[in-house]
């Protein structure tokens, strides 16, 4: 019986439809300012792709900060539990999940069943999140999506030591003025994010294997910088942004099974 998971994040809304043990459809759209609408739209798109009607779905779980806003019938579970379950579903040997999303970052320690043991999240500061990268890309006048590949060519990353987004931005500007190359500056930005995330994540036990999820996982430069900081390989799933929605659908599947 098909089930669905919907993850409404600050920047994007994602939906996943599962049938049995398999993901049969998924969607991803910008959240915009109406998270209720975005959640509904993401679900509809995924259902459309799966060729299903809403009434044919057994259970839906909503997650992400917009989970409370949804108007369709759904259980609500936090993105922490959903990321843990999604990561476990894709890679059962995952013990640490690093999720870097648009406005928040989190690290989750999970056990062999995908259960959350402990977690930490960033405070209000946006350093270490997708938002931080966006501000920096803007300051450097480059495309956000190009940052990852670009930084791999750096031989000597510029030093960006500020922890505050505003200060870091002015640091980036002064590095440009000093003549540092964009390649080195971007690499430096990635290192700054890695330090910030590591300092947060280190407050929970870090075990192999580490799985990285969320939109920032698509930036290979950040992944490499994190690997260097953690001295461990970091696995990025095929669809890092869908991990929460996938976990939500895994939970929906369990709920549907329990209801039978």
């Amino acid at each position, binding site marked *: 019986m098909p089930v669905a998971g919907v993850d409404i994040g600050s920047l994007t809304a994602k939906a996943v439809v599962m049938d049995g043990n398999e993901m049969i459809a998924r969607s991803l759209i910008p959240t915009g300012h109406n998270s209720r609408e975005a959640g509904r739209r993401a679900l509809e798109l995924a259902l459309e792709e799966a060729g299903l009607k809403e009434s044919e779905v057994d259970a839906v779980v909503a997650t992400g900060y917009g989970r409370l806003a949804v108007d369709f019938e759904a259980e609500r579970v936090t993105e922490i539990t959903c990321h843990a379950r999604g990561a476990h579903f894709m890679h059962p040997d995952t013990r640490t999940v690093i999720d870097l999303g648009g406005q928040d970052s989190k690290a989750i320690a999970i056990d062999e069943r995908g259960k959350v043991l402990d977690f930490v999240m960033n405070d209000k500061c946006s350093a270490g999140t997708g938002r931080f990268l966006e501000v920096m890309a803007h300051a450097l006048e480059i495309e956000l999506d190009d940052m990852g590949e670009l930084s791999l060519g750096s031989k000597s990353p510029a030093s960006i030591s*500020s922890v*505050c987004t505003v200060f870091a931005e*002015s640091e980036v500007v002064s590095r440009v003025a000093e003549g540092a190359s964009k390649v080195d500056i971007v690499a430096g930005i990635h290192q700054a994010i890695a330090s910030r995330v590591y*300092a947060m994540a*280190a*407050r929970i036990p870090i075990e192999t294997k580490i799985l990285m999820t969320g939109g920032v996982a698509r930036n290979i430069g950040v992944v490499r910088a994190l690997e260097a900081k953690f001295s461990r390989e970091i696995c990025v799933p095929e669809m890092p942004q869908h991990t929460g929605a996938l976990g939500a659908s895994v939970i929906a599947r369990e709920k549907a099974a329990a209801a039978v």
Partner: protein
Amino acid sequence: MSDEGDNLSLTQIKATDQMKQLMVEYYIEAKTTTEKPICWITSGGPVEFLIAMDVIPVYPENHGAMCGAAKIAPGLAETAEEMGFSRDLCSYARADIGGAVKQDGAIPGGLPKPDFLLCCNNICGTVTKWYEELSRYFDVPMFLMDTPFIHTTKTKHATEYVRQQCLELVGFLEKQTGREFSLEKFAEVALRSVAAVELWKGVLKTAESRPSPFTCFDAFIHMAPIVTLRGTQQVVDYYELLKGEMEQRIADGIGAVPEEKYRLVWDNIPIWYAMRSLGNLFASNQACLVADTYTTAWAVDIKIDDPLTSMADAYTKVYLNIAIDIMLDQLLGLMEKYQADGLVMHSNRSCKPYSLGQYDLARAVTERTGKPALIIEADMTDSRVYSEAQVRERVEAFIESL
């Protein structure tokens, strides 16, 4: 001590080499000793008792300053942050706890492990919490010398409480070292401490001359012996040398800042990682920082006829253990004595007892003297919260206003 402060004076202080050697020898002895116990002590602590008991005092705060100047403090602090210590906590404490765990720091392998701890809360309440953590981490005993804060009155019962604690400290040290305390030896140490303090005051006093033979950035470097080793003969010898050199500079008309035009007073702990750039920035604007509230904090008075009572009194009334209106009087005195044209305050995220109240002090100083005050937002060792461009902008605008 570090490569940061060495060339701050455009005219190099010759005694620097001696001081460096003194500090290197001290750290080598602390790292290699097999007989002498090691006690970690706070910067405002009564070190005379340790010297008299042949205990080697080790100062995490001095080491924190070294780590700050060497720009390695943020890396050490990160280790503490990973343990769950918030970034908002004192950066000396974070760097020290991180350094203890990593066994790393400005001296190879980090500070030697303590056998016991002596914490005096006359500088802040932070040290109590910091030393409690050290006591748990190293599993060693901690003695808290509790010096009641002076808001409006220094009470008799507070002085008596501190005096009694000095006696209790003696018992603690006897138990920890297995040695007997000798009042005679203690008196000798106290005498040398008084002598060193007098000489240090003399050094600071030479900056009253125009031009001033040194800047507070020099004082920050040369204060290391008075903080760590007062009570020893080497420190007395060292400050005699330094004082002589400064007096010679006055005789020769040599100023630390060429063409000294403005004289300023510094408030708060130095911004260790930015000392060179700040020193150059002020010097290039013909401004000399002639005095500060920080290095004068170690000018503690001890009376030989009643060392315990006078020590209890002296350690209780240090600059950071008094209310801001009493601080204001001292600050005004300093500005007058050194004929200062303005005040530069470092608003230090790491140090609340030093920084909270600065806004009121700055206003009061300007009201009372007509002299402007500048406030720089920074941290003593955590360069991650420092914006050099912003500080430069503010300093230059301030000097233009003089």
